[in-house]
């Protein structure tokens, strides 16, 4: 007799209605994809059974190779094999100049200011290279799961700035992945860890990956993961530890300069040595150099000395993060270690010493981030409507504007909870000034030159007045992904200027569209079909959510007349939706959305009242 199937509470009872969503950890060294199946989150393996996909992309005349096969050729074909591309994401051509000595690529400055890498298959931007890794993961997910992928939660270092986040989102878009949310890596780790352990209280997540370092302080309370502060260094990771050792190799070999292939050979040897030193006190490493063979003995003590300053930098960041969170070391209940580099013994002992407790290493530090992302993806896509889990993040770096004298005026300070909207008023400097350059920057330093430039735009049409008379209001809005939108308005005339912040050296939307288009073999047809399908999904979503809203709240919130009108407009959109004109559907969605805004706002106000209903006035006043 067949057993009856019973769904887990809160989960959709019909398996075929479950939507496919994945969590993706796009790492410097390795990338992973995970999903929730029958209530369990697990990473997905390739045909060979391996979950880790080396974040390495090799361009050949025949095509693109990603992962292990590409990594195997890294020393042989250094110019066409891109490793650690994450370190280049959202960076300008000037930023990567410093890397040029150590990374071997031939950089080329694009018109947009983005660094392109010359390969045998043409010039490639970091966004395109990352998209190749994402495409491979998407294919892996679709091969092991049945059906179309609804969307993904993609993780980023908490300390990534707006440009780096935007670049990551662009890469996902280019890979044809809908981003449900950009999630901070330490928060993802806390989810994987916290849900396993049922922890309540303050925890610290120390995340030292291949190329980035993050420290986050979180408060866990009944399924709510609230980030109190975050800090770190988006250019410090295991790669840098390898480089310290590789530089020592070069000194010992007594050579002045190394060529590209050799430099990569030496950093690979350094990485191997570092890994050996996790379990051994001393290791002999054999180096081939200019036809000779040199054997060097590396003790753990020697290695610890080489990386001491870098590790000390991370504990200083921990101290600052605690202070920003307003939490003392004793209040931290647990310390969670994430990222492959936390296997280094010196890192473990220093962190244990700083927090005065043994850090948790029980969840595989390589997988924990992808698993946490998968858990959130499952919820965001609507598979677990009763879930109480909520992730509240903060802005990692202050946002500001350039003022006279090259100074940065902060508009939103770091560690502010997001989403956030804030406005600041500025005025003109000269009599009769009619335009103003709005220069948006991110960072903690006082001088513009020390901050990251995010975008510049010009507000024109300010009426000529004496200096200081005009009032220009600049509004910043940061969404839950940590992405920024800026608008400016001259208050006396209402002249307005609005931009979606695109990094000073990022991809423009049309560039992405162009790249997307060229990636389809039957470009035109596919684009049209894809557009139509996207608009239909949008229309369905709106119609469904309105239908549900009417069912739930129409009686309480709408007049009979309003209901009739809404129904009429919904019927109109349904007709368009079943047609094949994507532009008409788009317009229809827009119009229905506008026509039902008042209803959505009333429902929002109702839910605010409902949320606080449990708290009686007596209780509130009794406590005050």
């Amino acid at each position, binding site marked *: 007799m067949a057993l009856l199937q019973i769904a887990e509470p809160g989960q959709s009872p019909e398996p075929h209605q479950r939507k496919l969503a994945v969590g993706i950890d796009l790492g410097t060294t390795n990338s992973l994809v995970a999903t929730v199946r029958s209530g369990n989150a697990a990473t997905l393996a390739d045909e060979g059974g391996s979950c880790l996909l080396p974040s390495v992309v090799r361009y050949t005349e025949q095509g693109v190779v990603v992962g292990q096969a590409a990594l195997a050729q890294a020393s042989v074909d250094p110019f066409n094999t891109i490793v650690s591309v994450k370190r280049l994401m959202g960076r300008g051509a000037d930023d990567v100049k410093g890397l040029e000595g150590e990374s071997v690529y031939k950089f080329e400055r694009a018109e947009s200011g983005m660094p392109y890498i010359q390969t045998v298959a043409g010039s490639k931007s970091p966004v395109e290279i990352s998209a190749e890794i994402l495409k491979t993961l998407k294919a892996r997910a679709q091969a092991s799961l049945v059906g179309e992928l609804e969307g993904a939660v993609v993780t980023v270092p908490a300390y990534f700035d707006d440009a780096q986040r935007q670049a990551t989102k662009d890469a996902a878009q280019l890979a044809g992945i809908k981003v449900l949310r950009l999630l901070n890596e330490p928060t993802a780790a806390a989810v994987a860890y916290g849900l396993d352990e049922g922890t309540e209280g303050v925890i610290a997540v120390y995340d030292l990956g291949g190329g980035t370092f993050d420290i986050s302080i979180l408060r866990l309370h009944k399924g709510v993961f609230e980030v109190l502060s975050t800090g770190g260094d988006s250019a410090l990771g295991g790669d840098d530890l390898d480089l310290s050792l590789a530089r020592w190799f070069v000194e010992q070999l007594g050579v002045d300069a190394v060529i590209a292939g050799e430099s990569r050979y030496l950093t690979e040897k350094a990485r191997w040595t570092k890994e050996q030193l996790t379990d051994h006190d001393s290791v002999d490493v054999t180096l081939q150099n200019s036809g000779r063979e040199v054997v060097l003995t590396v003790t753990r003590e020697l290695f610890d000395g080489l990386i001491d300053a870098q590790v000390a930098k991370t504990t200083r960041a921990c101290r600052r993060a605690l202070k920003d969170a307003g939490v003392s070391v004793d209040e931290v209940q647990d310390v969670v270690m994430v990222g492959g580099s936390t296997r280094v013994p010196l890192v473990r002992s220093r962190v244990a010493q700083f927090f005065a407790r043994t850090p948790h290493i029980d969840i595989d530090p390589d997988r924990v981030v992808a698993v946490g992302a998968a858990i959130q993806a499952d919820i965001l896509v609507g598979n677990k409507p009763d879930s109480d889990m909520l992730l509240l993040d903060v802005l990692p770096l202050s946002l500001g504007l350039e003022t006279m004298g090259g100074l940065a005026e902060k508009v939103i300070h770091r560690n502010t909870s997001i989403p956030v909207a804030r406005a600041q008023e500025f005025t003109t400097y000269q009599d009769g000034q009619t335009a103003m350059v709005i220069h948006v920057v991110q960072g903690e330093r006082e001088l513009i030159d020390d901050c990251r430039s995010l975008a510049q735009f010009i507000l024109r049409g300010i009426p000529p007045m004496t200096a200081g008379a005009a009032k220009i209001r600049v509004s910043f809005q940061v969404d839950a992904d940590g992405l920024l939108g800026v608008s400016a308005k001259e208050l006396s005339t209402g002249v307005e200027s609005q931009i979606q912040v695109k990094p000073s050296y990022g991809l423009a939307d049309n560039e992405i569209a162009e790249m997307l288009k060229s990636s389809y073999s039957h470009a035109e047809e596919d684009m049209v079909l894809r557009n139509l399908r996207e608009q239909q999904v949008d229309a369905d979503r*709106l119609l469904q959510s309105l239908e549900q809203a009417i069912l739930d709240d129409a009686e309480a919130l709408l007049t009979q007349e309003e209901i009739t009108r809404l129904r009429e407009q919904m019927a109109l959109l349904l007709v368009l939706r079943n047609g094949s004109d994507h532009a008409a559907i788009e317009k229809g969605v827009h119009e229905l959305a506008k026509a039902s805004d008042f209803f959505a706002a009333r429902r929002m106000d109702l839910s605010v009242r409902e949320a*606080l209903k449990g708290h009686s006035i007596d209780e509130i006043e009794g406590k005050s």
Partner: protein
Amino acid sequence: MDIKQNYFEFLGLPEVYSLDQQTLAEHSRELQKTLHPDKFSHLSDRERRLSVQYTAYLNEATATLKSPLQRGQYLLYLKGIDTFSESSVQLDPIFLMQQMELREALESVRDEADPDAALEHLQGVVDAELAELRSDFKTQYEVGDKTSLEAAAMTVRKMQFIEKLGREIDALEDQLYD
């Protein structure tokens, strides 16, 4: 966006200075659970947009009411006294003298034999000053007549000075450790 409630009403809290921080945190979390964009991620763009606006308002309200200085400023703002956007204010000379002395002490911390102890002492002074100002504000605000509210505004301005000094102590502490 058209949220008409002030921060206290929005968070279901009484309009008072001595606010219970735990209740504030609880109410804020409850509202996050209904308003946060992640609760709308499978719904339409329009609902997500609205939720971003409401959550931004909630975050601003929570941050303002959490900070003793901003909470005071906001209470005064609701009474028609705007200390948020004033650029220059008159403070009594005795207070200003004290401030100058404290600042001089801060500048010479680096040259002290034990800079850590010197910083800690300064931090103690700042904490005590702030505690006193907060208590002053509570009394002045509760009396609530025009003269008392003006006095409360003066107290808030002093708080701004002392908090700024507190931030400078933090910055110097960072520098000493690095």
